Structure formats: C-alpha cells, structure tokens
C-alpha cells in the first residue's frame, strides 16, 4: 500500500526540517514506506529554501491559501499519484511520528475510511490545550453528535489518516474554512466510517496556533454554523 504524509507548512523554517528528518529516520528504523509531500503555503521566511536545499518533496503554492487550501493541494497530489492512504501531519512539531502506525492500522485493515488522532479518549498525561479550548472542542463535538449521531471527541485534531475513497473525495472538494470539524461532519453525513485512536501531542515548539484567543467566539460561531449547514442539508 502506498502511503503519504501531507505536511502543510506556513513559515515553519524552525521546525520543518526536524519534522522531515524524524519521518526519514522512522522509515529507516521501522522499515516503513511513508512518502512525504510538504505543501509550502506561500511562506515568507526561509521554508522554501530549506525545502529545496534538503531536496524534500514539496509543492510551493504560488499564493497563500490557508490551512484548508494547502491540505487539499496535498490530497490532490495524493490522488494524482494514486496513493492508498494519506496522513495529515503538522510541520510544527505538535505531532509525533510514532503514532502514525496506530492511526493508519484500522484503515489498512479496511475497517474504516478515516481515523482521527485524538487527545481526549484516554487519560494520558500530555499536552491537551487550555480549559477554554477544550470546552470549545466539547461544544463542537456536541453539535457534530447532534447532526450525525456520532460522537467525535477531538474535533479539531489536525492529525488524521484517510483511505483511497476519502482522498478522492477531498481532492474533489474540501471545506477550506474550518476544515477539520466540517470535513468530519460532511464525511459522517455521507455515510463514511470514522474512528478515533488515542495519540499524544506536544505543545507547539514554534509559531502561533491559527486559532487566537479573542477570535475564539467568532471561530466557534462559524464552526457551529458550518456544521449545522452541513448537517441540515442532504443525506446520502
């Protein structure tokens, strides 16, 4: 099975090489075959230079698209190159390569279409973000349950693996605004099977999260509205 890791990178000059080397070392050590595609989302720092110098397989977006548009470019690449499994993985050091095997296992076994790397299903001592953030994630979780009937615990996790069918769905159309919770809702609505596997995440080493405090309420309203729009619509 061909597997690819999609790594969106926007101004990640401090961490992108480290992330890439981790994957390469992991491949050597465990005899795995994870390919890498970095999507440079119009970075203004040295990210592109680092990618070229180290001959990392990447696509440079000619303009900044935001996380959703960047990730979708990765899915298009995966679709064009006939990959069986695609893993979304952050370039900022939040995600840990050792959990990738766990999240793709259910897909390899053909049980599910998408696996979300979740921070909240088991009680492990790890970075689980602030109380306010967790409350927000719970609220989103509630609305997803409301419209789809399925409980998803870590609704904003950016660490996910999808099978071939979903690669083609996402290559074709991907919610560019608030991509994680909205795409999860969409795929549940379409009748795909989604499960969660417990992972640990690190506190981000550098850069700032795309979700800022004072914008949180606005973010929540938007996400919930998007979920409701998706949920109230068609049922396939």
């Amino acid at each position, binding site marked *: 099975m061909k597997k690819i890791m999609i790594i969106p990178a926007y101004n990640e000059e401090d961490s992108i090489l480290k992330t890439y080397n981790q994957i390469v070392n992991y491949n050597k050590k465990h005899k795995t075959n994870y390919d890498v595609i970095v999507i440079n989302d119009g970075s203004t720092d040295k990210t592109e230079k680092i990618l070229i110098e180290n001959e990392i397989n*990447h*696509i*440079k*977006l*000619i*303009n900044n*698209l935001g996380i959703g*548009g960047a990730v*979708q*470019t990765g899915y*298009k*690449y995966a679709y*064009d190159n006939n990959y069986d499994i695609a893993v979304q993985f952050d370039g900022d050091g939040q995600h840990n390569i050792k959990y990738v095997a766990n999240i793709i296992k259910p897909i390899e076994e053909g049980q599910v279409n998408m696996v979300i790397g979740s921070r909240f299903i088991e009680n492990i001592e790890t970075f689980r973000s602030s109380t306010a953030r967790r409350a927000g994630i719970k609220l989103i979780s509630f609305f997803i349950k409301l419209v789809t009937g399925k409980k998803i615990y870590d609704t904003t996790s950016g660490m996910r693996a999808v099978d071939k069918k979903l690669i083609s769905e996402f290559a074709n159309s991907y919610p*560019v605004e608030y991509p994680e919770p909205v795409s999860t809702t969409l795929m549940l609505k379409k009748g795909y099977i989604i499960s969660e596997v417990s992972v640990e995440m690190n506190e981000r080493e550098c850069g700032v999260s795309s979700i800022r405090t004072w914008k949180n309420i606005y973010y929540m309203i938007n996400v919930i509205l998007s979920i409701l729009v998706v949920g109230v619509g068609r049922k396939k």
Partner: protein
Amino acid sequence: MNYELLLSSIVFLLCLTIFILHLVKKRRISVKYSLVWLFPCFILIIFTLVPGLMNMISNFLGFQTASNMILTALIGFLMIITIALTVIVSNQKDKIRLLIQEVSILKSEKK
C-alpha cells in the same frame, strides 16, 4: 415638484447613465452587470418625467410620502446588489483557490 428640482434630478440621472455606459464601453464592467445599474436609472427617469406616477404608486402601497417609498426601494435594491456581489465574490474565491492549487502542482511537477 418644482422645475429646478426636476431639472437637476434629470441631469443627475442622465450623468449617471452616461457614466455607466462609459464604463461598459471601456470594458470596466461587463454588459451583464451594467444592467443592474442601468435599469434603476431608467425607472427613476420615468418617475421624474411623469410627476403624478410616483405619488400614485406610493399612495397605493400605503407610504406616507413618496420620498419614503423611494428610500425604502433604494435600500432594498442596494441590499440585493450587495448579496449578489457576495455570491460572486465567494464563487471567485473558490475558482482562484482551484487555480492556485493546479498551477502550483503543475509548476512543482515541471521542475
């Protein structure tokens, strides 16, 4: 309505119409979208030239004064245009995203 007002109103509407036609000619707006502006100009010119018409309609619709009707109609009209523009912008945003993605993929394959 006094004649000064009538005259200035007609001059203003004619200027507006000519300005829009000028934009169309210079291809700054497409014919399709210019109609949205030309049509109301045309209606307002008719209202100005036929003095009794406006009062008749506003009485019929139950407005206290004709000017209230004009203001209400204009606000409604502007709202519709703004909504239409929002639709167009959202649509274009999607298309631009697609273009950026495809061009970037092609460029990276060429290397």
